């Protein structure tokens, strides 16, 4: 693979909901194999940006590339044309997403949740898909829960199944949208451990989170967003110890004091 092409590149990405501008020109590059943590107050646009990356939200302006390919659109001349449902689905299959509320398929067991993508999207043979699904569940420490339904699992276990489901598709990029915000405090650690394990394995990750400890330990860079813009991008040491903008300082002051 070409190391010079960034995994994700955003160029003045804009997104509005009616009159409300959720994203007001986002520029960022995420190199292959790096971990970027996005922090900021709620409503700052960090989740919106994450959802734009796999076209769950359509951008209104600017351009967004994944691995050198435009997300959701095709450029002809100066215009962007939205791609067909099938093409968008194929691109999405290469990006794993972990949601705040897990969103496991409630009508399937943990194992089926992990298998359904490889079998129906990648048209893999059931037996090999099952083998890899078992592996993926083992990797997040849930081999014994393969036949449990989501309703029978704790929040932390559900979220780890969700991570396994995303990994089952062998993605080249993983997006995490506040993966621990809906969890009881004592369950957070297991999920964060699974994510750290992934980062050590060289996965490219973009993580929206309020877990500052995770950001400090795992992130290559920390991005601070405020009202639809990126205010600051720093390696974690600098970000936490010598924040540049006044706004960052007050944000960190509020969340790090307790």
């Amino acid at each position, binding site marked *: 693979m070409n190391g010079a092409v960034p995994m994700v590149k955003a160029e003045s990405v804009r997104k509005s909901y009616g009159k409300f501008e959720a994203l007001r020109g986002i520029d960022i590059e995420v190199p292959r194999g790096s971990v970027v943590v996005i922090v900021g107050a709620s409503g700052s646009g960090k989740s919106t940006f994450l959802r734009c990356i796999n076209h769950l939200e359509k951008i209104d302006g600017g351009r967004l590339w994944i691995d050198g390919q435009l997300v959701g659109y095709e450029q002809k001349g100066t215009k962007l044309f939205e791609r067909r449902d099938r093409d968008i*689905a194929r*691109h*999405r299959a290469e990006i794993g997403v972990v949601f705040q509320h897990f969103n496991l398929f409630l*009508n399937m067991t943990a194992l089926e949740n992990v298998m*359904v993508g490889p079998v129906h999207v990648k048209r893999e043979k059931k037996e090999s898909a099952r083998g890899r699904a078992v592996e993926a569940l083992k990797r997040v420490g849930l081999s014994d829960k393969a036949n449990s339904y989501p309703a029978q699992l704790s929040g932390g276990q559900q979220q780890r199944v*969700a991570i396994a489901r995303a990994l089952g*598709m062998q993605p080249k990029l993983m997006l995490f949208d506040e993966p621990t915000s809906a969890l009881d405090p004592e369950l957070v650690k297991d999920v964060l451990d699974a994510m750290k394990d992934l980062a050590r394995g060289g996965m490219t990750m973009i993580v929206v989170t309020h877990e500052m400890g995770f950001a400090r330990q795992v992130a290559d860079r920390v991005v601070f967003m405020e009202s639809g813009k990126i205010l600051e991008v720093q390696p974690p040491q600098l970000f936490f110890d010598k924040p540049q903008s006044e706004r960052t300082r007050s944000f960190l002051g509020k969340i790090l004091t307790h």
Partner: protein
Amino acid sequence: MSTPSGAQAGTPPASGAGANIRAIPARHPGRWVATAFVLFVATLFVIGVATNKRLGWSVVRQYFTSSSILHGVLETIALTALAMVIGIILGILIAVMRLSPVPIVSAGSWVYIFFFRGTPVLVQLLFWFNIGSLVGGQPAIGIPFTHIVLFHLNVNTYISAFTAAVLGFGLNEAAYMAEIVRAGILSVGEGQTEAAQSIGMTRVQTMRHVVLPQAMRVIIPPTGNETISMLKLTSVASVIATPELLNVSERISERTFQIIPLLVVASIWYLIMTSVLTAGQFYVERHYARGALRTLPPTPIQRFRGLLTRNVIRVRPVPPPFFPQRREHN
């Protein structure tokens, strides 16, 4: 009331005294009065039914399994089944149209539901029955405002009383089924769709593997209710002379002047058919409740066994899969 410790009400008891105190449940004399009243009314009713000669039990027995009544029963079953098939298939189509992002498609479905839910089904039946007077005996099917005619339809041949009833009930039912299916689809959270899309499923795959299986739990129970209602509703078709159960009963009573006994015959048959459907619905609902409930309600047989063994109703702990029949994902 005697208090073993001899303590006055309201004063804090001496420590340890509570060991001898028993709690007496409140008495409910009203419940005994209500029980006596219900038993009284029930006795009157039973005596009245048993001794009233006008019910004509011998006539009931004579006609209960007569061939014309049995034909009427079959006609009622056929009418119910066909109307429900049309209702369910068309209802799913209209529900999907209703959820379409294309405004005209969604509006078309809205108008359909508005019309068929907003007019009495009897009026709709009469329209279908008299369709010949509405469109002429041989209406031309072709492209409007041109002279192109695809074919002529002989309405009087095709629209018999039975066809009119099937169309009337089926199209009317579709409007209700559409709302039931729509509610089922909407009951599946948006997060499920997003998760399906994020692993690369297309819209059709998302519908088939994720949304519809979960919507079924919401769709199935009211569909059972609709079927039971439909079975009884088909009696309305007697008005347009469809030879279903009520209609054949009425024809016999017109001949024999035994009005009440034949109404009793029809009622007993309706009760038998609705009982069968109700029992079926109980098991279907129980099946789809798996995964949503921790313990399922006991079946009548389990309840009966429970009564024999002890007053406690024991329910087999259910292995909680959501859809036990589909362990393997196909």
